């Protein structure tokens, strides 16, 4: 059983930097915008974007809510200082509170989704103002598990990280000298106090990345994954999450009635003509 998730970080960096540069410039842009949460994924996306486009062409936007952890802002600042990127801080509290107040029963989950989507709105507005494309920050682990808000943090013009598992993100981030406090802290969406990804998911990234690597990259069956030593309940939970969240990874289906329907038999890459 091969569950070695180690990557050649120099090669990864070269491919991802080239990807950002290519996708931004081929459509006539030279700049990029991204939300900087203070966490690892957005820190890495930001560092890659700076390598691809130069610090003056990258706008890192911090979008705190009044209950956001102060560490998130501070850690984002560490990275901003290190990279020297353009930066803006736009607090979303006054944008989301009116919606929260409409319904006293608004759950944490709903609030989290509203905040994620509000940040998307701010980011896409800054995209137009800064004339930069929005760089995504979702990794392969969270895309597979559906651990994201649709049209929220998952929205972007391009995603350099989506084929790297969280543990591989850590390796690449370390190689790219992301500040230690960002590397060392527990991953969190910081949507409510004391939230951490691993507490909410019920397993660690270390564990689930090994399993995902076997199921997805190595095409193991669920039984083969169990035979390789993974707990049956864990395997089934993860497999169910992957299936249940397929909708988050797709454009909405279009009811086919004509002879040629977008998405089925009208097939062109996004990079068409570039």
């Amino acid at each position, binding site marked *: 059983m091969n569950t070695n998730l180690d990557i050649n970080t120099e090669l990864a960096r070269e491919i991802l930097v080239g990807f950002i540069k*290519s996708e931004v410039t081929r459509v006539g842009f030279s700049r990029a915008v991204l939300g900087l949460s203070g966490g690892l994924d957005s820190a890495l996306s930001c560092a890659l974007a700076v390598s691809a486009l130069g610090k003056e062409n990258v706008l890192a936007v911090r979008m705190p809510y009044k209950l956001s952890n102060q560490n998130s802002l501070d850690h984002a600042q560490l990275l901003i200082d290190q990279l020297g990127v353009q930066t803006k801080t736009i607090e979303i509290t006054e944008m989301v509170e009116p919606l929260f107040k409409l319904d006293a029963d608004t759950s944490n989950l709903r609030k989290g989704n509203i905040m994620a989507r509000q940040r998307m709105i701010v980011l896409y507005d800054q995209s137009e103002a800064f004339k930069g494309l929005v760089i995504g920050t979702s990794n392969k682990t969270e895309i597979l598990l559906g651990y994201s808000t649709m049209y929220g943090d998952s929205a972007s013009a391009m995603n350099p990280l989506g084929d790297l598992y969280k543990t591989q993100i850590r390796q690449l981030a370390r190689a790219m000298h992301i500040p230690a406090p960002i590397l060392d802290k527990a991953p969190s969406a910081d949507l409510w106090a004391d939230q951490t990804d691993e507490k909410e998911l019920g397993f660690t990234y270390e564990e689930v990345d090994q399993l995902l690597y076997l199921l997805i990259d190595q095409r193991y069956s669920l039984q083969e994954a169990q035979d390789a030593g993974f707990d049956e309940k864990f395997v089934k939970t993860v497999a169910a999450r992957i299936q249940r969240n397929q909708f988050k990874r797709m454009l909405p289906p279009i009811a086919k009635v004509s002879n040629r329907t977008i998405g089925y038999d*009208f097939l062109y890459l996004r990079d068409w003509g570039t």
Partner: protein
Amino acid sequence: MKLNLALAQINTKLGDVEANLAKHLDYIQQAKAEKADLLIFPELSLTGYVLQDLVASVAHKPTEDDPIFKHLLKASNDMDLVVGFVDEDSRHRFFIASAYLSGGKTLHVHHKVYLPTYGLFDEGRFFAWGDQVRAFDTRFGRMGLLICEDFWHASPPYLLWLDGADLMLFSSASPGRGLNDKEKLESARWVERVTKAYASMFTSFVAHCNRVGYEDGLHFGGGATVFDPNGEELAHGPYNLEAITYAQLDLNQLRRTRARLPLLRDERTNLTLSELQRILQK
């Protein structure tokens, strides 16, 4: 006899044949300044790779009256060329093709015989399958052309060898995949291994030209290679950069290698044929 070979690992504009032609002509000028005899471009070098519904609109014929090929045929008076394109036959079937141009003429056209239609590939949905693997004569000796998946299978290089090809020219638009802790991507290591193996087993020159650039997140890594009949690497292009890689081929090496190692002389083609017939009749 010496052959100055050049491999142009270019990026392409998806579906923009005129822009790609301009790049070809530019690279031909560069190679001319370096006195290249033969310049090889990658698979689908005139069109880009993931064409999908663009296929019909980018197809061309390698003839003098074609608005694209007339420029390339003219340029082939200066040096021989291998270019990648979408070929449309008289009955409107579309092929992934490579053309060998020399002295203003199209000497040979190869239609890709293996269309990968699995994993990230979907060529069989959009293209017709080629049905010939033929060597052909050039002013530098007998050669063969293959395109990407063609040489992931062992039989097309073997057939070219038996058909007299002493120089095998491979072109690719090979999406890099399989990042791990190794120095190169899994797909790149695989291609370099088999390309070297063909040169060694067939005691022939093997040159491979792979494109660079990105298409919707697919990444093409370049890394052109040339191996001599001993399986020794003569040249290796950079990864992920547009470049021309030059190699001078001493064609007399064929004689020296085969005098020492007569694999071609001893190849038992009738044994292969009779066993194949038995296997296929099962």
